[in-house]
């Protein structure tokens, strides 16, 4: 695969790893947060951690839209799916996530609800055409990457005068989540979690550009490297972070320059701005309520807003008492520090957000990295 396989080359990786070892100062630690689940996934899937110097510590951030969606929002989708005449469509990622009382969309489907997996927002729109007698609701999740396609679908629905298509919008914003982590007391004040720098998102940044991260570099003095999702991209970005930290710099640098510009995709941003506006606040699973961290559908497109059409209200749902996802997402704790990890909380029966998707810190560690714990405790 052109522009994929080249960035997975093991021989080059070996050389980059050696260089990293040469440049990483043995007398300090490098605590780096990869914001995105995509990086978490790459780090585990390709075994990148084995190639990093021991004093480089990767902290897995909250950049997985499935993980951060609060149970209360999923319950709203379940409630919608239970209504007569409603066909709920969503991406495959959401289908298995348990809501309150462990009920998932797949379970609701087994009980008779009409729930369809779609690959694209456009497929949901197509379904609305095919099922004129049903209310087709698109349960939209995702960061800035996934938002523009939803916006296009809403614009098209309006242009086509569709009466039976709505969107249950759960799109969230990356910079607000990064700010929330940097502002959290244990990171900013107590210094218990020294996050020295960030790997910034690849595909989110294709849309929003590198410019939104400049604030973090300036305000919090943390270097940010926009990094591609292939393992060599991750390695190179970590090396770039090591270099910035060694020389005391805190800048935004763009490793994923083959697809990310400073201002991103202006057309996509314009379409998003046409359809969506900021929510005053939104609850993130693991992080709590984060101000101005999500989008809602503008009143101009009210008839396509499922929350308005079906009069849905949000009720926060209770998380498991012992769950440490919040602390894990901020890098305060590691998955294995949580008492529930790999005991009651497993990918089959996830208790907290970090276990619900393979990109979550706990699930990735459970699925790909568990043997290292066994080796250490053996």
């Amino acid at each position, binding site marked *: 695969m052109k522009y994929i396989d080249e960035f997975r080359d093991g*021989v080059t990786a070996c050389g980059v790893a050696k260089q990293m070892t040469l440049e990483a100062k043995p007398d300090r630690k490098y605590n780096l947060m990869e914001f995105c689940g995509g990086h978490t996934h790459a780090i585990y899937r390709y075994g990148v951690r084995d190639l990093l110097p021991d004093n480089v510590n990767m902290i897995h951030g909250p950049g997985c839209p499935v993980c951060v969606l609060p149970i209360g929002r999923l319950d709203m989708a379940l409630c919608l799916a239970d209504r007569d005449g409603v066909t709920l469509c969503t991406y495959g990622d959401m289908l298995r996530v348990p809501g309150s009382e462990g009920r998932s969309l797949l379970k609701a489907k087994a009980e008779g609800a009409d729930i369809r997996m779609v690959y694209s927002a456009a497929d949901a729109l197509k379904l609305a055409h095919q099922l004129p007698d049903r209310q087709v609701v698109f349960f939209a999740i995702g960061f800035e990457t996934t938002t523009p396609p939803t916006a296009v679908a809403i614009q098209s629905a309006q242009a086509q005068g569709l009466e039976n298509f709505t969107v249950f919008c759960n799109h969230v914003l990356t910079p607000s989540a990064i700010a929330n982590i940097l502002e959290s007391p244990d990171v900013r004040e107590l210094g218990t979690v020294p996050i020295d720098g960030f790997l910034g998102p690849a595909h989110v940044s294709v849309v929003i550009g590198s410019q939104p991260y400049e604030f973090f570099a300036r305000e919090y003095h943390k270097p940010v490297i926009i990094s591609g999702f292939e393992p060599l991209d991750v390695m190179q970005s970590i090396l770039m972070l090591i270099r910035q930290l060694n020389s005391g710099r805190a800048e935004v640098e763009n490793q994923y320059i083959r697809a990310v510009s400073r201002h991103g995709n202006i057309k996509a941003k314009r379409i998003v701005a046409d359809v969506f506006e900021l929510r005053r606040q939104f609850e993130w699973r693991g992080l709590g309520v984060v101000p101005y961290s999500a989008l809602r559908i503008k009143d101009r497109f009210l008839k396509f807003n499922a929350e308005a059409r079906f009069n849905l209200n949000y009720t926060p749902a209770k998380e498991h008492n012992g769950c440490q996802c919040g602390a894990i997402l901020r890098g305060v704790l590691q998955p294995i520090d949580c008492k529930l990890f790999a005991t009651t909380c497993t990918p089959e029966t996830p208790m907290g957000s970090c276990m619900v998707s393979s990109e979550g810190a706990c699930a990735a560690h459970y699925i790909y990295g568990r043997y290292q714990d066994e080796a250490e405790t053996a």
Partner: protein
Amino acid sequence: MCLAIPARVSQMLDDDRAIIEIDGVQKEISLALVDDVAIGDFVIVHVGYALGRLDPAEAEKTLELLNAISQTSSETVAS
């Protein structure tokens, strides 16, 4: 994160749509989010939409840089 992969545009269709090709796999996608895409361009595809273009020249530069880093380290270690 967001699963997206670079793919080559192999055919232009009506209504802002196109066919992309990756190693013998073809898929129809939407070009609604990008302007002026031509056959042969590489685009980043996410949920059936091209999110942006991939710049082959920049990709080559990144690879050259990676190779340079990799070789420097081998030389340093060898010396």
